């Protein structure tokens, strides 16, 4: 299943990130993952939350430039080599990964890694065919 990630365009200036976290906090949004890709003058904040639609709406209401990007969340055992297993499968099947990051979830000795791949449907199929689990939502 595809997971909705919210991406936000942020200028690199004081207080901009705090502004976002304030909006999310006031909106009672539970975060599951948060990562920033940055360049010299702007950054892209990527958020996984329990309420993606509400998150997007809140941010837009506050005049932030935000959009939904679909990503895959793969559940892995919390043990050495687990990530490598997925990477091998992706490599073998030529799934292009644009970026990945880990979430804040550790449960029953399992973690979730988020993947943004070029072709999401193909990526999901590969995960399924290799007996791995893609999460449906948080």
């Amino acid at each position, binding site marked *: 299943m595809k997971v909705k990630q919210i991406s936000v365009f942020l200028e690199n200036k004081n207080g901009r990130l705090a502004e976002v976290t304030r909006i999310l906090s006031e909106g009672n949004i539970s975060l599951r993952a948060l990562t920033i890709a940055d360049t010299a003058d702007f950054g892209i904040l990527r958020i996984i939350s329990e309420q993606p639609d509400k998150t997007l709406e809140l941010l837009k209401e506050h005049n*932030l430039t935000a959009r939904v990007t679909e990503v895959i969340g793969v559940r892995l055992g919390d043990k050495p080599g687990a990530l490598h297993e997925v990477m091998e499968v992706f490599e073998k099947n030529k799934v292009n990964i*644009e970026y990945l990051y880990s979430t804040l979830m550790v449960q029953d000795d399992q973690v979730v890694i988020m993947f943004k791949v070029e072709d999401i449907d193909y990526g999901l199929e590969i995960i399924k065919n290799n007996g791995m689990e893609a999460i449906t939502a948080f």
Partner: protein
Amino acid sequence: MLIWNSKAECDNRDDRKVQQLYNLKKLVRHVYETIPFYKTKFDEVGVKPDDIQSMADIAKLPFTSKDELRETYPYGLLAVDEKEIVEIHTSSGTTGTPVLAAYTEADMDMWSEVTARCLCMAGGTPDDVVQNAYGYGMFTGGLGVHYGSHKLGCNTIPAASGNTKRQLLLMRDFKSTILTCTPSYSLYMAEVAREIGIDFKELSLKAGIFGAEPWSDNMRKEIEQKLNLKAFDIYGLTEIVGPGVSAECEAHNGLHVNEDHFYPEIINPDTGEVLPEGEKGELVFTTITREGTPIIRYRTRDITWLWHDECPCGRTTVKMHRLLGRTDDMMILRGVNIFPSQIENVLMRIEETEPHYQIVIDRGDSHLDEVELQVEVEPSFFTDETKSLERIKNKISAEIKQELGISMMIKLVEPKSIARSEGKAKRVMDKRKL
């Protein structure tokens, strides 16, 4: 298409010249005899009223600068008794002492006449509803257009600038057909309209008359497309009369100067030499029919050129090209002369950006001019990847380099983060200590 005053606007050029010379001679004699400021200046260069025998002799007269207008404020250049004055305006200048424009009854008639002409040039008729979103008050923009609209017999909505949501509601409820405001404000209106769900295609606007700041052909296209109207340029300045000095007709090929009242010249801004028709330089005006505060050879600092052609509209008045900038707006960056309108032109070509921008000029440790161009990202082009945003940056940078010949640092900023102006847009922040 209606021509407001075909006698004056479509006159034989030789006949007009005779009239211009008559008025010029009368004015020169009057200011020489009644205003000490002019007498002193004419005496300094040794010119007497009798030396004016042809329009070309105007070049013998000294220029008048904005600084001189400030120095003689408030009534130093008044050419009539104070009791003859029925209205005054001061310049919209944001710095220093203001500049006075005083109007007699006859001046008011003339002003209404020339602005009515401009409204007609944009296709205006007495059946139109003119929503006037120029600033009212001491600024001449609002009232000048207002008087012209009355003269023409239009339903006039004195909306003034600002309160953008109300502007849009007025437009919708009273079916405004002509909008008058600054070009940058019109684009801001388009933005607000989208936010509150008003579609310009459902409004009744047919024409927009935009002025008070330089704009580009690409900005015109953008305005026409976003506001669903025909955009016309209007030009004027408080020192001369206010709006109504010149305007575009439906040919959209230059602005017809109301030269029976405002005699234009183009000069080399460095030497003061009068340039032949068709050459680019600083625009200079002599208000040959003003009574209250007439001006001899006023240096506008505006850069343009003049020409005559056989305009399909039938008017024979001289044309000026839309402003290319101002001599004092011109930036010299690493030795290259740059007008903000050139940057605007580049941005308008790039669909991934909004036409809202700001230029920040600073001089870094290297003592070289560093120019940062802040550009708003068009929200629909925001993607999740840094590389696509970097691609937009590189595209802007390459186009700027090609168009202007200099490199600028491009900074993408969030949509709506650059301050919007409801009057003249402040495009350049020069932090250099020059």
